[in-house]
């Protein structure tokens, strides 16, 4: 969707808060306790049959004013609320009151066992995901081929940013066939060839800083045509 999230190349967002640069050296990962709680919640649970692309789309659907003004992890919480409502786990009333009206939905099941820190570290290792798969179809493009990106997006979730539409680039690498996000956000798992495509900055921007600079994007075959 042509939403507020697609900020690449937009102007007017002001200075970058670079003072945070060395925060990690003093061992801080979070700025507020509630950020840490949201992170922890996101690691513990998500709606069972969710896809990463549907979750991303639910975040993109946040009202532009909220997307821009509310803190990052706050938008995760709002996205979680929306996906739990969509999945039938919460009602809107429950979210607004902050309490369950229906009691324990999984009353007949054992509540989840508590993890120790070490178990969480090990569980993170198990969270490694592969999104690629072998498909019969041969890739349409080879390294070095000139390609042009689609001129238009669509109202659903897509990963071709607006700034790189209708632009000419070259195939830099083939990455195998990956889950196509536009369909995955609708619950359909289809694998399609994924390419790393390199663009000369002069082909993306009228005000490129240096003509030797390049921008690389990872783009699915559906986003590309032969130039």
């Amino acid at each position: 969707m042509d939403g507020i999230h697609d900020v690449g190349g937009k102007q007017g967002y002001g200075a970058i808060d670079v003072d945070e640069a060395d925060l990690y050296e003093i061992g801080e990962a979070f700025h507020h306790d509630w950020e840490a709680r949201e992170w922890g919640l996101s690691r513990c649970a998500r709606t069972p049959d969710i896809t990463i692309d549907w979750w991303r789309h639910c975040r993109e659907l946040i009202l532009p004013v909220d997307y821009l003004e509310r803190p990052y992890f706050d938008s995760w919480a709002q996205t979680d609320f929306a996906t739990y409502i969509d999945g039938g786990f919460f009602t809107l009333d429950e979210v607004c009151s902050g309490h369950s009206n229906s009691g324990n939905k999984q009353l007949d099941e054992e509540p989840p066992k508590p993890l120790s820190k070490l178990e969480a570290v090990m569980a993170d290792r198990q969270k490694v995901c592969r999104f690629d798969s072998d498909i019969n179809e041969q890739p349409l493009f080879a390294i070095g081929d000139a390609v042009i990106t689609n001129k238009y997006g669509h109202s659903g979730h897509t990963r071709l940013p607006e700034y790189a539409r209708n632009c000419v680039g070259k195939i830099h690498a083939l990455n195998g066939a990956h889950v196509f996000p536009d369909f995955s956000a609708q619950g359909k798992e289809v694998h399609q060839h994924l390419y790393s495509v390199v663009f000369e900055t002069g082909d993306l921007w009228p005000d490129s800083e240096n003509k030797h600079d390049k921008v690389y994007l990872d783009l699915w075959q559906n986003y590309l045509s032969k130039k």
Partner: protein
Amino acid sequence: MVEFNAKKVAKVHQHLHSHLPSDSALRVKALETLLVEKGLVNPASIDAWIEAYTEDIGPKRGAHIVAKAWCDPEFKQRLVEDGPSAIDELGYVGSATGHLKVIENTASVHNLVVCTLCSCYPFSILGIAPAWYKAAAYRSRAVRAPRGVLAEFGVQISDDVEVRVWDSTAELRYLVLPQRPSDTEALDEEELASLVTRNSMIGTDRDLLKKVEVKA
């Protein structure tokens, strides 16, 4: 069951805009309360995940990978050829690193990583992304004016160095392999790792020698 109903979710967001408390801490508290009351989450596990990402999983892992690549050419080759397998040797593969790509800075190339569409980040080796990485100011300008962005971080790139910006639009995640500072032959892997900044692995830092001089 997830309905994948975008129109419904857009309406939900309108309701949430009007009816959720404004305070972020109260919102997250409500989410936690609901998940615990419904038996979907064990509160002790939330603490465990926070501790894991505060104490164990963070940019020190990335710095270890970089220092090892500087010291061990065979590891570096494996890292560049197959990032996930190479970092798995150290037990560091995990959240968002199943398709890790390692991109190497040289005297004539500087790499910079961004996610313009959301804030994709290689969690299991760099931990929680800094706030600026997730903010519109960085995400909007990194692809259009990377040299200006780098200057804001105090990094000057000369005209003969090529800047390559990597926009994480798919599930590939990028780790910048910074250049090893010169005159560091006497340092061991652990000492070298202490020179690697988190920002240098995203690309908003370049010359790690500055840090050697400060330490000396």
